[in-house]
């Protein structure tokens, strides 16, 4: 009898491709993604983006710049303007992780370097300091980097309270994470309505499915918007996040994020045959997207190829958009692409849901 039941269980597993994939393919896949992301976050595989400005223009500083440009553990670029303002602007825009300005000859006395950092990428400063010290010891003879000496002046961008940037980062990260999960649960009603024949009843009417799908989408968008409102209200009350001052771009970003989450969730659910299937696939997929997109570990700590992959996730666009409007004081033109991508993804998912649900299943 034990073997009989064992066989039933075995056949059930072998004949269910979804269960097979979840049991044997998904765990290694998630392991690889988590290992890649979190191993990168430990510093071993981090390749930070650094902009270098050489105001000293001495033989030692030129050698150091060349060494930093050639350093495989950095993605260094030289700023031709060589002004503190230009470097600060680049750091503030988020295009680079930190900026190094060589104020005086590194071989001379005093603190020759100004390290401009973004508090939302706090880990970047010690990592870059370490890289600069190594390069200095190796390529600038006569400078003993090991000797106690203050080499760096620090300039964190924005006069904001330290830590607020990170709060805003995770407010955005959590917003898109839960917008997707909430939308997924809301969209599951598509399957229930299809199975119960409600979709058939609606499709038999003159208006077809469009108003029903549209109404569902509108609800999920507003649900996501209010969810984002709750998260950022707490961020404002507890951490002083500057939402009120940027309410209009915050509202547009939140609407775009919610529309993206609603559309993607509806499209995904419409493709699934059962509620269980939709939940399993949806949760797994959204979890992977969250990790890759930076909802759990900031993307700048990931290997470059994974950072590139992250731009394919809504999480990365949402986080960047919130950062741009609330932290980096970016202009509207800097967030249009993110809004466009998010709304586009949402509408694509919505269209997929519409055409999938109205299809006759045989």
């Amino acid at each position, binding site marked *: 009898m034990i073997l009989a039941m064992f066989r039933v269980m075995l056949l059930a597993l072998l004949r269910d491709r979804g269960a097979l994939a979840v049991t044997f393919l998904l765990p290694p896949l998630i392991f690889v993604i988590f290992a890649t992301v979190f191993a990168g976050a430990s510093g071993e595989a981090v390749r930070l983006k650094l902009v270098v400005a050489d105001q000293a223009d001495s033989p030692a500083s030129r050698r150091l710049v060349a060494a930093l440009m050639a350093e495989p553990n950095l993605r260094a670029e030289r700023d031709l303007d060589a002004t503190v303002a230009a470097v600060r602007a680049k750091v503030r825009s988020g295009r680079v992780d930190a900026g190094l300005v060589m104020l005086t000859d590194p071989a001379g006395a005093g603190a020759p370097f100004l390290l401009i950092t973004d508090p939302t990428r706090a880990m970047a400063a010690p990592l870059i300091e370490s890289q600069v010290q190594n390069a200095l010891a190796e390529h600038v003879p006569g400078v003993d980097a090991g000797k106690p000496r203050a080499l760096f002046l620090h300039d964190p961008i924005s006069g904001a309270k330290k830590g607020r940037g990170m709060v805003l980062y995770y407010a955005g990260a959590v917003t898109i994470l839960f917008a997707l999960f909430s939308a997924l649960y809301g969209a599951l009603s598509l399957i229930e309505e299809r199975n*119960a024949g409600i979709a*058939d*009843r609606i499709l*038999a009417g003159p208006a077809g499915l469009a108003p029903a799908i549209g109404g569902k989408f509108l609800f999920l968008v507003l649900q996501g918007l209010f969810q984002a409102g709750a998260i950022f209200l707490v961020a404002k009350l507890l951490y002083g996040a500057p939402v009120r001052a940027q309410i209009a771009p915050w509202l547009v970003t939140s609407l775009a994020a919610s529309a993206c989450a609603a559309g993607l969730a509806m499209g995904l659910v419409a493709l699934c045959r059962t509620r269980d299937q939709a939940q399993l696939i949806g949760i797994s997929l959204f979890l992977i997207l969250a990790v890759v997109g930076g909802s759990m570990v900031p993307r700048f700590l990931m290997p470059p190829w994974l950072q590139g992959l992250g731009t394919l996730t809504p999480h990365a666009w949402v986080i960047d958009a919130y950062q741009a409007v609330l932290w980096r004081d970016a202009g509207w033109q800097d967030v249009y692409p993110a809004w466009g991508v998010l709304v586009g993804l949402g509408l694509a998912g919505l269209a997929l849901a519409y055409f999938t649900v109205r299809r006759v299943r045989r």
Partner: protein
Amino acid sequence: MTGGRPILNVWGAEHAYRSRRYLRGVDLTLRAGEVYALLGPPGAGKATLVQAICGRIPLTGGDIALEGHNPRDTPICRSALGLAPHNLALYGHLTVRENLLTFGRMAGVHGAALRDAVSQTMHLTRIADREHVPVGRLSTGFQRRVNIACAFLHRPRLLILDEPSVGADPVAREALDGTVRDLRDTGVAILIVTHDLELAGDLADRVGFMREGRKVMEGAPRQLITQAFGQEMEILVQLDEDPDSGDEIVLAAAGLERRDKTNVWTTLDAGGYVAAARLDVALRKAGVIPREIRVRQPSLQNLFTLVADWQQAA
């Protein structure tokens, strides 16, 4: 009541998908105030025909006119159509009234007209006394009536009831019959798609038998039965327990056939009660003791079996 104006016309409907032909030249006309039952085994093409009438699938041949318009080409004409799917297409967490309001709005009825329609429909379908109860807490039979009410709310000229009696107990069935009759009296044409031959026999003005994508027989139930069986009566022999193989030989020799894996054996005989008495004597003599023998007019069930046999022979 079959003299009303035509609401639905189907001419030579054909539908094929991949290599399979689901409909093979089906004709159908439904008039205002008529109840038509579409019968047939699973896979006969009934559901496909309903999907075509609802404009869900294109025809590969023939045409359909709902109030004079093709429902696929002219979606607006589908406002003349109400569909009660075979599943309970309702929101279980909403009350009866809330379900009616929801589906009314989706059908394009709003404001005071909607409120009036909800009240009238609840009374017509006899569900008003539970209007504030969540549908999920109601019996299946009651839910069936709510399912129909939601399809009738916008006052369609054609009401399609797909398996309306599934899950309904005898009391609920009686209430359902009453509801359908009351709806018919409003002048709506009702197309019932069902396996429930008793329901069809009780309610339908006309029935159509479908098999393998074709309509193989159509007419008023009593007329079809008379045409098929003439003066023959159905004799039903009820046994106490499963007959052994010897008894089965005796029963078969007496011309009896087992009905649907039950202990009821039937035959048709123009001799009626006299033939039944003779059969009783013969069976007892052979050692098979019936618990009960009944004689009745042949039903749609007999006709259905006859049609199936003809088709198999063909």
